[in-house]
């Protein structure tokens, strides 16, 4: 997942570089000064809630928008003054934007027709692309005759037909149902490996970003919060926003007591002494206010007298979700809510105990709990992934 496979067909430099780009619309700054390098042949995702500026970034790379400041380079060449139709990029639109009055063939061949490729070569290319997206024989069909997944594939084939160095994907899977979406994730990843083209993927769905990408940039309010591979992003979020937005997290307010390398001891106030891990680069010191993030799946029931930090809570709700059980518990000391996710194996041992009103004690491995500076992090709505309260991130 984290390895960067250059792919067999890479002949051209598909790297993308954003140099201190800024995008302003009137008084509104959609993108604050951003510098970023995306490698050739990389599957790179921009992940963020709607309105975070990720589509604006994509439009600057494709050329639909010109940055207010800074510049975009593709394959090392500055793109200033290069119009959309002359850039080595192709875009897959959120609504796909297939041409409804044309056949599948005509859609795929449109870009080649523009380039003056003759009829026979065009047809050969489109047949080859239809085979790549597993749609052989659908060429003469009208767009209206296709299912959602088939339209998706035609859109991919149409974009690949112009042999772009960079393929830009603007949430192309959001209109599909869950099963098809998961299937298309694997297919997109496979096509990316096969073609070796740089994929830049925009999404608000962390599942998509984490499963497909080599690297992910998490965005909020026009700024990139963190750029990392999916494992690092999940295990070591760099900001409170990333911790709250990627996956689920319980957040506890603490004060740092002592730091030993990456391990820290924390004063949780009424919760007693807690522990966690900070990044080596973190500037947190003893006495600083700090937020402790514990993922629901890292919490587990412990017996009385166990060593390590303990959180005592009363169960308020128990949700059986098949592969796991989710517990909603209220911390006895502070009244804050705690979310716990137990795997099948563990939850079976506690079947009788998992009822509302029951008092339980939860422990966690301090290495799994990330400690970040208390930065008034935003609250993220669990259902929609939208930021409910903006923080000072």
């Amino acid at each position, binding site marked *: 997942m984290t390895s960067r496979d250059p792919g067999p067909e890479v002949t051209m430099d598909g790297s993308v570089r954003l140099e201190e780009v800024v995008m302003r619309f009137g008084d509104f700054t959609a993108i604050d000064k951003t510098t970023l390098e995306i490698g050739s042949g990389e599957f790179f995702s921009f992940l963020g809630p709607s309105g975070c500026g990720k589509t604006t970034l994509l439009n600057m790379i494709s050329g639909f928008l010109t940055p207010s400041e800074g510049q975009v380079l593709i394959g090392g060449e500055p793109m200033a003054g290069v119009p*959309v139709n002359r850039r080595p990029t192709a*875009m897959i639109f959120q609504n796909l934007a297939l041409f409804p009055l044309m056949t599948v063939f005509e859609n795929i061949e449109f870009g080649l027709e523009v380039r003056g490729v003759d009829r026979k070569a065009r047809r050969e290319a489109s047949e080859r692309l239809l085979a790549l997206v597993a749609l052989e024989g659908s060429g003469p069909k009208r767009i209206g005759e296709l299912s959602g997944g088939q339209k998706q594939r035609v859109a991919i084939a149409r974009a690949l037909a112009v042999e772009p160095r960079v393929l830009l994907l603007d949430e192309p899977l959001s209109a599909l149902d869950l099963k098809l979406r998961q299937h298309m994730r694997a297919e997109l990843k496979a096509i990316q490996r096969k073609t070796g083209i740089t994929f830049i993927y925009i999404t608000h769905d962390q599942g998509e970003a984490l499963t497909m990408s080599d690297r992910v940039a998490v965005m909020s309010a026009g700024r990139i919060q963190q750029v990392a591979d999916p494992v690092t992003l999940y295990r070591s979020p760099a900001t409170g926003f990333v911790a709250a937005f990627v996956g689920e997290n319980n957040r506890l307010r603490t004060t740092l007591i002592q730091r030993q390398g990456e391990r820290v001891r924390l004063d949780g106030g009424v919760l007693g002494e807690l522990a966690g891990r900070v990044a080596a680069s973190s500037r947190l010191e003893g006495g600083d206010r700090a937020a402790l993030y514990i993922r629901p799946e890292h919490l587990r029931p412990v017996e009385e007298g166990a060593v390590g930090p303990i959180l005592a809570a009363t169960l308020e709700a128990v949700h059986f979700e098949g592969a796991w059980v989710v517990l909603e518990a209220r911390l006895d000391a502070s009244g804050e809510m705690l979310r716990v996710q137990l795997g099948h194996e563990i939850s079976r041992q506690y079947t009788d105990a998992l009822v509302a009103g029951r008092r339980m004690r939860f422990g966690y491995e301090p290495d799994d709990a990330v400690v970040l500076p208390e930065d008034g992090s935003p609250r993220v709505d669990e259902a929609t992934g939208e930021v409910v309260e903006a923080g000072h991130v």
Partner: protein
Amino acid sequence: MFRQLAARFGSPLAMAILGLLGIWLIVMVTLPQLQMIDYSLRPNLLPAQQGGPQDGWTLANYATLFANDIHRAIFFKTLWSSVLVTLLTLGVSYPLAWYLAKVATPRQAALCILLLIIPFWINEILRTYSWFIILAFRGPLNEVLMMLGLIDRPIRFLSGDGGVMVGMVYAYILFMVFPVYNAIESLDDNQVRAARDLGAGTVRTHRRIVIPHAKPGIATGCIMTFMLAAGSYAVPALLGSPGSRWFTQIIYNWFFEGGNWNQGAAYAFLLLVLCIGFMSLVMKVFKVGLGDIAK
């Protein structure tokens, strides 16, 4: 239809609606037309001779057009000029409709539409007269062109078809702009963006994406403009010269100067047939049905 209306409005109201519709269609549309057909098929007789031995149905009035070289020439010239007016109007309206639908901000579009509509609050004859003044031999347009040094002496804009063309394009532009605007407006912006993204330039994007999408609107605009142009009387009468007579003027002359209603009715029907023929042709060429146009 009655049952649907009755279910919605109740029987008495449904009957009233259908009754009014029937009266409208029969008394105000069908009967007058039938009477004109009857007129066109009878010879022009003195009142005393009507009902006499000479009275009877004949195609003589229709044959007149084909026997009269001048009238026939004017008939085909009217056809050709109306096509030209239609194409010119489309040429002016398409960029305007594109601008209104896809380029302008809502404010700009509203302002622009207002500016387009305001002149139409004035009577058509008066608007046409204003063009007569603008285009006159000693009128402001010639003055400006001379002042700019573009011409040495005034041009007789009104002596040929030029004045008529300008007047008609101006008079019918709204009938073209609005259907085309509506059609273009319904085009998803991403279609245009996708075409651009795949490398298409402006011309190809319009030819392959925008125009095919806007086809029903373009067909509607063309049909309306052609009908209005072919049936126009005021513009050729005011801005035309003896050399640019319109077929409607011949019809007018038969009715009101020649006093020969029978002949006039026959000519009027020939013009109607011409218009219907053109409409069917355009619909066939653009592959649109009546349903698309009614939208």
